[in-house]
């Protein structure tokens, strides 16, 4: 019966040959690694772009001949033009939000570990899974292509507000084919994510091993599941939005473009469109996207923390319910990005309350972490350090969100560096910390080798202090009224703040450089690292019950049966202070 059930369940044969093993692989583990690799490439690209921006802001008249050679129109003679600054800004945001924060914690780790953690041999639809990655990859290529076209990369920011993004090249460089490529790339990306989310949901619902009830799933599995539900809705809305944008740009429709616009002395031939429509559609995706980035990190970090604490969380259930309610609330708050956008002021109030309410589940999550640390026996590893760093970042970024959720304060702080500081901390850096924590934690399982702890810790200290040095001052600048997305501050109210900007830039260069330590550690350990045992962290979830790296069908044909809740730590078990999920032994509290 069980055999009959699971034989067809193994939907693909062991991969033979390079192509089917490494390129068009159906194996969720390889696909997970591919997503992670794509994110790794994107994150370093995005980081270099941010370096160029920070450099241009503080040393606007210093020539960078190399850059001049790379981008002759964008940086003639190595001087970055204002439009190229906006291109860097747009590409940085798009790469980071879509191809890093969505790919790595969700699609990357999720693909690799969700099936294993629920005791499945693969995703429900391996072919969709493969398509999902390669679609995303094409999206990536289309986006990057924008660097190499005469028109230059798009310049309308990652939010691509219409009509700037819709009227075409008259509005400025990068808004011709650059913007087309952006919209096409994001549309393709949406398709990839939809396929992925569909896969995650079906897999979680239907391929759980015997005994793996929903409440016995590890917290990160839950996070991925909730995230895929959010993603399914979010990307299903962004896709139509991008299509309509493309129609406005290429087919002359007027969904987002009103009549009577004069751009570059040219009267635009459109009528009756609504710029706010784009903002509504975009933010209806955009805010949930924030949680698509952060929830998987929350899950990963909880998973790592609980393992390093050697004791269960105060309550995994409460944590999971809090994540759910965040996911649920995320659908009622998109308008808080539009307080000063000309939306009806009454709706601003309607949007501000659910936004403020999100603070409650977020606080619960934080308090659960803190409360669980009490009386714990924290093992300090690179993984747990990044997890603890995440908690700190999550608090810092969350608190500033509390300011922006209030329309009255947002009148002053909207579109200042305060906002930039806020979302970089809570959505950017925090999520990155989650990814890094997950990397140090799962690398042994994924590669069969340990990462170098000394380098890992060095990497942590520089990154942790560095990110605070970069993003805390952003808040101060915002309080003074330093406007974001400015290519330069000459002849300007903001010019006196230049010392702070210099400090930030230097911190950014150092912190960025420190990431090379990580890259080196990653590559070096992959080949030279010391061989990893099956369960190096004495962890309890299913991924640690199989060899490192796992065989192509995860459990080698075995069908794990689950007997316990995921985190049986601080107990008297046969192996030590923990009992694994699939071990039938009785649990006696220590």
């Amino acid at each position: 019966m069980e055999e009959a059930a699971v034989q067809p369940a193994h939907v693909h044969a062991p991969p033979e040959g390079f192509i089917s093993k490494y390129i068009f692989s159906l194996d969720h583990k390889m696909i997970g690694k591919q997503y992670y690799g794509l994110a790794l490439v994107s994150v370093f690209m995005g980081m270099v772009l941010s370096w160029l921006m920070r450099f241009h802001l503080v040393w606007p008249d210093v020539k960078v001949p190399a850059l001049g050679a790379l981008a002759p129109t964008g940086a003639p003679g190595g001087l970055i033009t204002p439009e190229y600054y906006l291109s860097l800004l747009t590409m940085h945001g798009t790469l980071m939000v879509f191809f890093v924060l969505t790919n790595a914690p969700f699609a990357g780790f999720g693909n690799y570990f969700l099936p294993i953690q629920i005791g499945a041999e693969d995703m429900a639809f391996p072919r969709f899974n493969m398509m999902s990655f390669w679609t995303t990859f094409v999206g990536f290529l289309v986006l990057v292509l924008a660097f190499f076209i005469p028109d230059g990369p798009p310049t309308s920011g990652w939010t691509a507000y219409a009509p700037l993004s819709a009227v075409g090249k008259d509005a400025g460089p990068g808004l011709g084919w650059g913007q087309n490529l952006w919209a096409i790339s994001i549309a393709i990306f949406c398709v990839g994510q939809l396929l992925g989310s569909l896969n995650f949901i079906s897999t979680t619902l239907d391929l759980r091993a015997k005994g793996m009830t929903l409440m016995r799933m590890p917290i990160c599995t839950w996070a991925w599941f909730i995230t895929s539900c959010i993603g399914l809705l979010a990307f299903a809305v962004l896709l139509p939005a991008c299509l309509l944008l493309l129609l406005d740009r290429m087919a002359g429709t007027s969904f987002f473009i009103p009549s009577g616009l004069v751009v570059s002395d040219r009267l635009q031939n459109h009528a009756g469109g609504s710029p706010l429509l784009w903002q509504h559609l975009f933010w209806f995706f955009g805010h949930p996207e924030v949680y698509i980035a952060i929830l998987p990190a929350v899950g990963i970090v909880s998973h790592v923390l609980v393992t390093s604490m050697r004791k269960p969380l105060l309550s995994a259930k409460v944590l999971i319910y809090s994540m759910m309610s965040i996911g649920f609330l995320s659908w009622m708050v998109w308008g808080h990005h539009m307080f000063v956008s000309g939306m009806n002021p009454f709706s601003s109030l309607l949007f501000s309350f659910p936004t403020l309410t999100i603070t409650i589940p977020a606080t619960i999550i934080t308090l659960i972490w803190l409360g669980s640390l009490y009386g714990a026996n924290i093992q300090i590893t690179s993984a747990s350090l990044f997890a603890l760093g995440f908690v700190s970042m999550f608090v810092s970024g969350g608190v500033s969100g509390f300011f922006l959720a209030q329309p009255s304060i947002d009148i002053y702080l909207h579109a200042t560096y305060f906002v930039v500081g806020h979302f970089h901390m809570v959505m950017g850096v925090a999520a990155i910390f989650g990814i890094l924590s997950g990397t140090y934690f799962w690398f042994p399982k994924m590669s069969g080798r340990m990462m170098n702890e000394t380098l890992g810790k060095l990497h942590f200290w520089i990154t942790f202090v560095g990110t605070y040095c970069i993003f805390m001052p952003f808040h101060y600048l915002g309080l003074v009224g330093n406007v974001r997305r400015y290519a330069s501050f000459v002849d300007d109210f903001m010019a006196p703040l230049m010392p702070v900007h210099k400090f930030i830039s230097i911190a950014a260069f150092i912190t960025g450089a420190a990431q090379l330590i990580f890259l080196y550690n990653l590559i070096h350990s992959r080949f030279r690292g010391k061989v990893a045992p099956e369960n190096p962290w004495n962890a309890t979830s299913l991924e640690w019950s199989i060899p490192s790296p796992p065989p192509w069908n995860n459990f080698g044909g075995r069908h794990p049966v689950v007997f316990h809740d995921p985190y049986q730590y601080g107990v008297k078990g046969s192996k030590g202070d923990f009992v694994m999920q699939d071990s039938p032994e009785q649990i006696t509290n220590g």
Partner: protein
Amino acid sequence: MASTPYQHVASRSIVEGSGHSHATQSGIWVGIFAITMSFAAFTSALMVRQGTGDWRHIELPPIIYLNTVALLLSSITLERARSRATHGSRSQLRDALPWLAATLALGLVFIAGQYFVWRQLASAGLYLATTSNSSFFYVFTAMHALHLLGGIAALTYLIARIAPRQAPPRWSLFEGAAIYWHFMSVLWLYLLVVIAMRL
């Protein structure tokens, strides 16, 4: 935190047979959910856009109602096919074949019909960018047609698999395709109402 061994080890994925047929089912439903979501987005766009003036109603070519009939018929024929092949054994599937073919044909008729509708509007001088109404009309109908092509592909695949000297397709695939196809009919009815009332 303590839990006794063998406490609720039952989990539907194993007990109720193959998790994968379930997965196909829930996959289809999840997909349907996503599609619904994006058409909801299109509709809300229409609502917002309607508020901003220049709203000129368009004359719907009557063919569109014939197309509707064809699509609804296809759902019926598909049901006939399903009742023929209740458990998906080879012979039952063979009996279902003509009905499947009929469904496929009706689907193609619908697509062709929609094409004529577009031709008629174009000849009436209504193109994609002419008015906001025409824009929405083309977007709605084209997006639906696009999704229906997916269903047509699925039917073609099934028919090919049922053809002789082939391993019969998994029953769950058959059911999945059926659910999707019916959803396409429902979606079309919804769109037709929106189009007739709003555009």
